């Protein structure tokens, strides 16, 4: 069964994630979150308003189809800029607490960004010819270009974090996970369209809208629920209790003073090595 444009499922998938996203922004704006991730809040707000406006323009009989495509173009360009700003915000939040690797991380992701933009431009140059008007064919290529760079950059954040074992903040991780999911799926779909393999199929829109819906749910879960704090340890474990039998007692694993002495020995040896 092929889904029809403006069927109940279609309308739900178009409207529901945007309404949910706007509700999420409404909740987040009341919280501390907006100060931590202002660009993501702006992105979510813009994407929500844009989605609802495009729906209204689509169903309105007074609106010329060309005007709808023009609105989509403007929205896509602004949203594309916001997507890259969100990635920058995630990178900043991810590295700001770790000065030892901040410069390296920024350089690696910036380098990946330059490479991705170059590859995206090459991919755009080799996309299939489309018989549709230029503003329809070109926007497919624009989608492919934006999502290729955005998905690649999000992937670079995950690879960087895994390689250096950078801890994720729960909220930042949720944003990156949701964005990674939807941008990778969109890239696959728009690559098929721009490559001429899949065109004029309602399944493309259904898949894209459904994935965005899932992403908004992921963002809602990660941004509205908080991480469990570990309970304070039992005082009896904090006390240096002689009756406690350590499970991993090495040759000198008992006394803190002993460790301090060892540490000082190491410090002397290593300082000598470094300055020789």
């Amino acid at each position: 069964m092929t889904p029809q444009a403006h069927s109940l499922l279609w309308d739900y998938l178009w409207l529901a994630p945007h309404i949910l996203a706007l509700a999420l922004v409404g909740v987040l704006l009341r919280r501390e979150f907006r100060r931590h991730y202002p660009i993501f809040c702006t992105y979510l707000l813009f994407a929500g308003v844009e989605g609802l406006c495009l729906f209204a323009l689509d169903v309105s009989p007074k609106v010329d189809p060309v005007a709808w495509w023009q609105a989509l173009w403007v929205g896509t360009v602004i949203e594309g800029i916001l997507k890259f700003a969100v990635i920058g915000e995630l990178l900043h939040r991810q590295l700001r607490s770790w000065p030892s690797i901040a410069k390296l991380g920024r350089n690696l992701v910036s380098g990946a960004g330059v490479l991705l933009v170059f590859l995206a431009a090459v991919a755009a140059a080799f996309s299939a010819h489309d018989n549709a008007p230029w503003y329809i064919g070109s926007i497919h290529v624009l989608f492919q270009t934006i999502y290729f760079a955005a998905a690649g950059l999000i992937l670079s954040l995950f690879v960087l974090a895994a390689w250096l074992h950078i801890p994720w903040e729960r909220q930042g991780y949720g944003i990156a996970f949701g964005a990674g999911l939807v941008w990778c799926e969109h890239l696959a779909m728009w690559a098929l369209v721009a490559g001429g393999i899949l065109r004029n199929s309602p399944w493309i829109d259904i898949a894209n809208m459904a994935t965005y819906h899932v992403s908004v749910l992921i963002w809602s879960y990660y941004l509205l629920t908080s991480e469990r704090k570990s309970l304070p340890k039992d005082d009896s474990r904090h006390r240096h209790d002689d009756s406690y039998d350590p499970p991993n007692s090495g040759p000198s694993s008992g006394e803190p003073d002993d460790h301090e002495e060892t540490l000082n020995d190491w410090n002397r040896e290593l300082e000598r090595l470094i300055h020789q």
Partner: protein
Amino acid sequence: MNPSTLAVILVVFAITALLYVGYSTVSKKLQTSKDNSRSFQIEPLDVEAFRNLVDPAEREYLRRRLPAPEFREVQRQRLRAMADYVHVAARNAAILVSIAQAALSSSDPRTVETARHLIDNAMLVRRNAFYALFRINVALAWPNSGLAAAPILHGYERLNGSAMLLGRLQNPAVPVRISAM
């Protein structure tokens, strides 16, 4: 290039990226559940032996005493041993990040601050280990060249201090030791 081929390449890239993002989420969940037992996976590192390996004076001594072909062979063996040490240091640093990450959610501000410091030092060690391994691999191809592995040692020394402090704050009876006695 054929547009269809390009589209397939991009789809494969997108699916791979998606799988990686999903995999990292699953592994993150699994890692959190076994963080408590990770300190036992730390392999204490003999910094004294490592110091001897990277000592330029030692290298110069060998160069003077040994014939050139023999020196190159010995130096390669030393470099391989050095690489093993660096691998252990990097792996220990990764384990310490996991342990300290769990401590970040502690209600004790001092523990959280120490955990942050430990993570920063551990990541510095991982970064330096990457550079050191690169230089070691270059030196393996050209054993006569000099090699400075001091940054990794310096980072490891700071890591040792932070790990012991965090271990002491969390549980004074069970210290975290990353250097052999």
